[in-house]
């Protein structure tokens, strides 16, 4: 067992002494060697979940196990886990080597052992040449790797990462993402990875937990989340483009469920044909594909993604939209649970 969180509950008090629930009845199980991504909008409670797992914040109720051991009341340093902070939290007055060795020194590991461990961690992360330098002399990517090296040197049972790519350039982000994945596989440890970026979640996670307003809405593989989102919120949140959610009226029905259709599963048809007809409000080419914003007569907006090679229609023109009924999702409401 990697990490098991049972019935975690945490509330903060606002200035008016009103309790604000940060976590409500959260259950999450990260298997040994699994990379679990916790994703959600900012303020959803994902950071609180991570910090509670790390022991930096106490839960009001619930239980946390790491490696099969109950650590609910254990100090952060006694949980056999490492945390990589969003700002890396490198000690500015210590060299890279001293930063990496910090935990080992605090625990009184013999010096010769520390030297070996630091050298090994540095080799693994390509930091050997930087060992004598100070954090301020490093690039963003190097700082990130020092934080990872400091986290892995004592071979913890689990890794926690808090938005580790947030302060990196986009191209570096892509590379570091792959490096983190590779490192996790090589070490075979459980990893709990928090991000607000669903692309990162889909790319990295063995499984993904979507958090919203302090609750876990769905836990599943990237494919499950994409093809069978359990709520309309997830349908909009997961995917490069949010899923189109159509109220029954938009499809000419009196009542019924909200229909969801992914922009990439829609096709253009002649005006007056297909499921819907609307006016093209905007055209966004993005290389191979083009995204069209179509506004229906009842003001419902629909995103349509079509191959650019099909010939891109002009903004302002009328078009029909069609899709296969098998690709439809149905939800009780625009935020609500899946019905079929």
């Amino acid at each position: 067992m990697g990490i098991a969180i049972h019935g975690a509950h945490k509330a903060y008090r606002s200035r008016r002494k009103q309790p604000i629930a940060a976590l409500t009845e959260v259950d999450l199980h990260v298997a040994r060697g699994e990379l679990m991504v916790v994703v959600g909008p900012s303020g959803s409670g994902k950071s609180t979940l991570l910090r509670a797992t790390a022991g930096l914040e106490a839960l009001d109720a619930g239980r946390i196990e790491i490696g099969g051991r109950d650590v609910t009341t254990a100090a952060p340093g006694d949980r056999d886990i490492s945390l990589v902070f969003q700002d890396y939290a490198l000690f500015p007055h210590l060299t890279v080597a001293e930063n990496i060795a910090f935990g080992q020194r605090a625990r009184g590991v013999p010096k010769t052992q520390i030297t070996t461990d630091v050298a090994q961690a540095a080799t693994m992360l390509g930091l050997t040449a930087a060992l004598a330098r100070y954090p301020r002399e490093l690039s963003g990517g190097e700082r990130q790797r020092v934080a990872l090296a400091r986290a892995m040197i004592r071979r913890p049972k689990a890794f926690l990462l808090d938005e580790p790519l947030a302060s990196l350039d986009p191209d570096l982000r892509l590379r570091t993402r792959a490096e983190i994945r590779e490192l996790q596989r090589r070490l075979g440890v459980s990893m709990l990875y928090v991000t607000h970026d669903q692309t990162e979640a889909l790319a990295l996670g063995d499984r993904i937990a979507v958090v919203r307003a302090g609750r876990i809405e769905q836990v599943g593989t990237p494919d499950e989340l994409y093809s069978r989102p359990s709520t309309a919120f997830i349908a909009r949140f997961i995917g490069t483009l949010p899923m189109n959610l159509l109220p029954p009226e938009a499809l000419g029905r009196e009542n019924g469920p909200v229909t969801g259709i992914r922009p990439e599963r829609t096709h253009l048809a002649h005006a007056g044909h297909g499921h819907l007809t609307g006016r093209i409000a905007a055209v966004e080419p993005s290389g191979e594909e083009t995204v069209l914003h179509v506004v229906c007569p009842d003001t419902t907006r629909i995103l349509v993604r079509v191959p650019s090679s099909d010939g891109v229609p002009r903004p302002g023109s009328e078009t029909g939209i069609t899709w296969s009924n098998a690709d439809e999702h149905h939800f009780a409401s625009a935020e609500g649970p899946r019905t079929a």
Partner: protein
Amino acid sequence: MNEQHCQPTRPTPHRRWDRARTPSLRHRPTALALPWLAATALLVGIPLIGSAWLAFTDYYGFGAPSFTGLDNWHRLATDETFWHSLANSAKIAAIAIPLRTALAIGCALLLHRRSSMNSAARTAVFLPSIIPDAAWALLWLWLLNPLYGPLPLTLEAFGLPSPGWFTDPAAAQGGLALVASLQMGEGFLVALAARRLLPGSLHEAAAMEGAGRIFTFRRITLPLMAPILTLLALRDVVLLLHTTFIPALLITAGEPHSATLVAPLYVYRRAFLYGELGYASTLSITLLITAAAVAAAQLIVLHRTRLLELL
């Protein structure tokens, strides 16, 4: 800590119109400091120059100063009382500076978290620094009084000997250092601000790595606050050459056995008890040079150890 270097905005020549619109003061911080600099020149600079001139004269407050060349300086070289008073000042500073710094950082670390209890305690720590120095000194005259002072009485109640604040030379120096040390409110505020500036994630990272409180203090908190604490200690050297004057005058009057005859008290006596304003100026200038030399030496050490780079 020093990753964000702000680039000052420099007005470029082709944006001259910009300057016409915005007040030029915005681009010239020195202009803003001018009133202060003018007052300093007037109230400190000119008297200082006058004092430097008087240091080479005989002057008793009446008539004109008469130039005596290096006579005052020859007298200074053999004035054992002055060197004794300077040694007293140094001894008191040697006790008070570490004590003040330790108290300031200790209180800052104990009280930096936000809570109403801490808030009240912070006020209490700062309070002695806003009490007028004379009132503070007279308060201690009562506190330390061997016959009815609360401090000796308390010690007596526990069967402990009173150190003889007014009778034993070393105890008197220690007492003065204590009086000066508890007025460390400003240092406390600076230490408090320095502690609050440390990113919270550093201490959390230390906790994650299993560092205990003492290890974290030694390896993280203290080194990161060291530059500011060093500056505080540096300032205290200059400060303590002066602030011991009032308690030495009001509590111990320089006694016992001249143990608390601190340098500024001796200068004061030369000037206003014996009316030797010329020679007192010589002593003042010597004190100023001493303070400047000590401060310069500390700055050199600071730059050598590169402590300031961490700021």
